């Protein structure tokens, strides 16, 4: 989780990621942020985020993003 928070803080230092629960729904992160984030996640966690996973519910909060990474790691 800490590694993910580090990536997010680097991406958008102006956002309090621990508090935000609607990063997509409230347009805190835009589509360009999400694509950059996916690139970082792929590299840092050795996963491949597929386009099927590009849904608001998977990126609305740090916890949701973390859950997605864990799911992708389990699926191998």
């Amino acid at each position, binding site marked *: 989780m800490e590694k993910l928070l580090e990536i997010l803080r680097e991406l958008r230092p102006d956002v309090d990621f621990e508090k935000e629960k609607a990063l997509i729904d409230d347009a805190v992160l835009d589509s360009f942020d999400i694509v*950059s984030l996916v690139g970082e996640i792929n590299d840092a966690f050795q996963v491949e985020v*597929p386009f*099927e996973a590009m849904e608001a519910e998977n990126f609305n909060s740090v916890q949701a993003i973390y859950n997605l990474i864990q799911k992708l790691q389990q699926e191998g």
Partner: protein
Amino acid sequence: MTVNSLFFLLFLAILFLLYYVCPLRYRWLLLLAASVFFYVLACAASPLYLFLTSVIIWIAGVYMERLDGECQEKIAQEKTASAQWKKQYKQKKKRVLTAAIILNLAILLILKYSGFFVGIGNSVLAFAKVKIPTPDFLVPLGISYYTLIGIGYLFDIYKGKIQAQKNYAKLLLFLAYFPQITQGPLNRYQPMADQLYEGHPFAYHNFSYGCQRILWGLFKKMVVADNLHPVSQAVFTQFESMTGLTCFLGCIYYTVWMYADFSGYIDIVAGASELFGIHIAENFARPFFAKSVAEYWRRWHITLSAWFRDYMFYPLAVSKPAVNFGKWGRKHLGVRVGKLFPSLFALAFVWTCTGFWHDASWRYVFWGFGNGALIMGAMLLEPYFNRAKKALRVKEDSFLWKLFCIIRTFLLVSLLKVFPGAANTGDSLRFIKQMFTNFKLPAGWQEVVPAITKGDALLLAVSLLLMFLVDVVQEKQPVRDVLAKRPLVVRWACYLFLLVFILAIGRFQISMTGGFAYAQF
């Protein structure tokens, strides 16, 4: 039938009465019959293509769901091989999805774009004196809309977000629902399906809000758009005799006309749908208040932008070629720029397709490139802009800075209207030359606002001001909620004021087809 005609209002009134006397469970069938009637009346020659597309989408959707069921059965029988079965069936689903998309896009490409591509082929083959006959298909009304709505539906089934609709008639209603069929919005299955298939009991709130929105849409279309159109058209058709300043103003007139026309249409159909208790997707969120071009496209034609984002931008941006492109960018141009490469890769496709979607012509391709270049340029140059803002001590939260950003964005998107505004690509280029080389000042007011009398210009200015003020209020809270809290006299004074305005200078359509700018797309 065009939605600003008296015939449409009559159609709506009859349908409204029938809907609420029809038993609840058959109401969706009535909406389907009305939608088919509406479509056949509007484009009698081509409903066949709508039925063809809808059948392909229906079969593909049901088949993908069947594959899901089979996959579950296999997993239940052999739990240890779960991942393998999932992978295998995902591939099968992908093949079905790809085939359905190719088939539907082929219909769209042949009917709408074959002339454009044959034209390119003829230019290339001109040296060999070969001339391919240009096909002249009748482009079915709304094909660009229902094709994309159908493809979006299939993507959502593939992703497992929704279940396929097994009843063909119900799927046809989703694709051909009359308020969305000619010009969108591009509704998604998830919020629409339940609303469409459930019969809604009469609710005064829906009736009242629906009528208000129709009235406001008619005002925007018939008073603002239809009176502004001759002005912008005069500038774009007679630009060679106009000053550079008039040409520049022509771009602004065109932008505002487009907004009043298209958002007016959306207000009318959203209000019409609300009469039946069905809320279609919002397509506009005060685009002229956007502070960047990227934000403008999140506020203008929202459902099209969202469609391209979800079904084209994301799949392309996270695809292997885009990821590899990003890695190459990081290695050769640094981490910051490299990170943007997957987005830039996808944006190049998205904006080329957005241009093409609007029209099969080079001027729309240039218009798409222009929008893409502005968005990509802003992304790439962001650190330099930030440095400049810091040096100039710009306070980003200040009203003046926000106003500057809003005006800058409005002017940029307006200037790009030189492409769709002109009759052809050559005229677009000559228009740009005229705008930036003729520095004479307009001789009189008729060169500033051509093709309109002084009196009409004044009424137009008042109506534009009213449209702007309503947007200012709407930006903070829904105007209809604000109005609902006012006394009865105030509310009715507003309705009557709009009605008088429409009857005084509104332009009624008697014709059954055409009339709206976005219907041509």
